[in-house]
């Protein structure tokens, strides 16, 4: 007791036939979520980011209550401070890479974590992509830009949804190393979703296993 929890996630939510039920708390700032596809991993991240309102539950990250159904608290999406790297990247195709990166950076000037812009661009190796349109990027480049965009938005915590899926092994290993570096560099809570045990083992020992019910 008395030790601040990095994560406190209790929630119940039903989407169609799929019932997601989570009761989890951890002091470790970096956790992984695993489970077979369709079990609700992305739904869990969407609940945390505020894109889905769970039926009941309580979500606390880094000591900040984001959602509490009994207290009728639900912080708005834009104020939750999620650095969400979507599985499908979701870059804005009508904006160049530089404008994609600046999108969230401009909106949350009150920097929660002092991100070193230059260093992140260098770590992710995207310096040469800034003038490009997202449609001209390769799969690996899109992933790296998506990670940078989330980190640049001065997040209070990071949500990474299978950031390495559909990448070749070499590229995946490279990006995983970057994510490890980033995690240490900006020091904010991180939830990493993956169904690859090798990936999660490199990042954390604390694993939330979702099982179908």
């Amino acid at each position, binding site marked *: 007791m008395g030790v601040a929890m990095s994560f406190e996630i209790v929630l119940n939510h039903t989407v169609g036939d799929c019932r997601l039920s989570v009761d989890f708390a951890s002091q470790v700032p970096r956790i992984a979520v695993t489970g077979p596809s369709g079990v609700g991993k992305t739904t869990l991240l969407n609940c945390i980011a505020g894109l889905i309102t769970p039926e009941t539950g309580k979500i606390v990250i880094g000591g900040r209550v984001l959602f509490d159904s009994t207290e009728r608290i639900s912080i708005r999406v834009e104020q*939750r401070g999620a650095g969400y790297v*979507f599985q499908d990247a979701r870059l804005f195709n009508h904006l160049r890479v530089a404008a994609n990166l600046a999108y969230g950076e401009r909106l949350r000037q009150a920097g929660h974590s002092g991100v070193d812009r230059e260093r992140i661009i260098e770590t992710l190796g995207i310096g040469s992509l800034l003038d490009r349109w997202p449609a001209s990027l390769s799969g690996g480049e899109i992933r790296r830009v998506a990670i940078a965009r989330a980190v640049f*938005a001065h997040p209070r915590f990071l949500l990474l949804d299978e950031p390495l899926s559909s990448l070749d092994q070499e590229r995946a290993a490279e990006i995983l190393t970057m994510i490890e570096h980033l995690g240490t560099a900006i020091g904010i809570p991180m939830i990493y979703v993956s169904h690859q045990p090798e990936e999660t083992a490199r990042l954390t020992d604390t694993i939330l296993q979702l099982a179908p019910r």
Partner: protein
Amino acid sequence: MITAAEWAIIQLSLKVSLVAVLGTLPVAYALAWLLARRQFPGRSLLDALVHLPLVVPPVVTGWLLLILLGRRGPIGAMLEEYLGVTLVFQWTGAAVAAAVMALPLMVRAMRLSIDAVDRRLVAAARTLGASRWYAFRTITLPLTLPGIMAGAVLGFTRSLGEFGATITFAANIPGETRTLPLAIYTGLQVPGGEGAVTRLAIISILLSLAALLVSEWLIRRSTNGRSHVV
């Protein structure tokens, strides 16, 4: 070649159509957005109302406008009493008739483009700190710009060609409500009017073609030559 009276007709037509389209643009976009993105009671009814001018005879639309917006109509009487505005027999009345007739086409074009915007992008913008309004301005609006252009051009050409509702509601008054189609019709009624009719008809065709070309150019410019924008 073209007489001063014919120039005046062209100018009047352009003025009526431009005012009709510019005035309708925000209304049409708001309706398109509501119909594409929101579920609310009466949505089907609103959808049907918006499409009404497309399916009923234009004369009937003109007659309905006369009943509602005429000097003794419920809305028309209020406009005259409180704002001192009379629409019937005025060029503004012709613009209102053209606007109502153009509305369904504009809403349809814009709605298609709003439907095509990936809502996951809007969700992504929200997680990055964008309010609903900011996400709309920076994601939805730019991505639907080609649809707005297409709607505006469709509405403009429809307004240029408007006949039935205009002649019923605003009448055929030279210099005030006699737009190109009304002038062509009038020319056909008088002996020896064939010359004027031919000139005005050619001008109508050229104006519509020019509007199409301008829209193509605007759409290409608004997408910066990128091929993936819907």
